[in-house]
């Protein structure tokens, strides 16, 4: 579900000297995800649908949040 911009880059935010990722690199990656029927695009659509279902009633995300609420409730009873 990712598009590679650069395989890796080196630099350290604390000591400075970060390598620059150029607009050319970014543009290539953005164009890649804008293409219709690209593999990444289809995969993202598929995952978006799954995430949507997960957050509905009975979905995995909703169930997990209910368990969290259950746990905090037990802190005060």
């Amino acid at each position, binding site marked *: 579900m990712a598009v590679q911009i650069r*395989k*890796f880059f*080196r*630099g*350290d*935010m*604390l000591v400075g000297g970060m390598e620059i990722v150029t607009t050319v690199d970014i543009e290539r990656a953005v164009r890649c995800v804008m293409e219709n029927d690209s593999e990444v695009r289809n995969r993202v659509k598929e*995952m978006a649908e*799954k*995430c949507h*279902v*997960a*957050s509905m009633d009975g*979905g*995995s*995300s*909703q*169930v*997990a*949040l*209910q*368990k*969290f*609420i*259950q*746990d*905090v*409730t037990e*802190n*005060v*009873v």
Partner: protein
Amino acid sequence: MKIQLVFIPSPGIGHLRSTVELAKRLVRSDDRLWITVIIIPYPSISDDDVETTYIASLTTASQDRLNYEAISVANQPTDYQEPTQVYIEKQKPQVRDVVARIFHSTGVDSPRVAGFVVDMFCSSMIDVVNEFGVPCYMVYTSNATCLGITLHIQRMFDEKKYDVSELEDSVNELEFPFLTRPYPVKCLPDFFTSKDWLAFFLAQARCFRKMKGILVNTVAELEPHALKMFNSGDVAALRRAEDKRLCDGGGVGIGGSDTEVL
């Protein structure tokens, strides 16, 4: 019964907005829940920067069951490169004041404080939370795989003296239980390979383990392998499951190949 949760998100719009959305969702899904969000802003750049505008919109939208308290931060010139965690730690006194106020306002009909939910960069706030004797949970705004790798690197460092910032040049890949494929060493983020950052992230990971539970920004369908490794889809039990898993597994295997098994 009214149950009060206190959220402490990290400054920065990415963390703030997602934590606020989580609070909204919780309040919507259970009408016993009351949430106070303590907002630690960055010193504002201007009156109309994205974060300042967002915080202003939240504080005016405060209501009984979901209210927002923005602390005032000292307008000192901050070092641009100061890590967020260090900045947050400095705000402990102001946060403690707000927390004390929440506890003192407890009347007969007031909600009972059942726990705190702090952002991953606010994990040091567990010290403040402990003073008030309630459980502390954490929101991890990145995904479960990333959390698993961070905790694993910390466990390997503490228990096996395995330091990812001092890998031999011959090691090209690492194998993590949280990943299905070997991970190229060159792609490790600099907070794992730089000595200074690593120490910082290891300390943070140790703090994660003190939480009663960790809410991870993911869904089970998105990262089935990582969640299987955590051994449970139960977010509240995540830390315990993680501990168990790491005690069971692990071990450094240095074979003839260039891949090391973490």
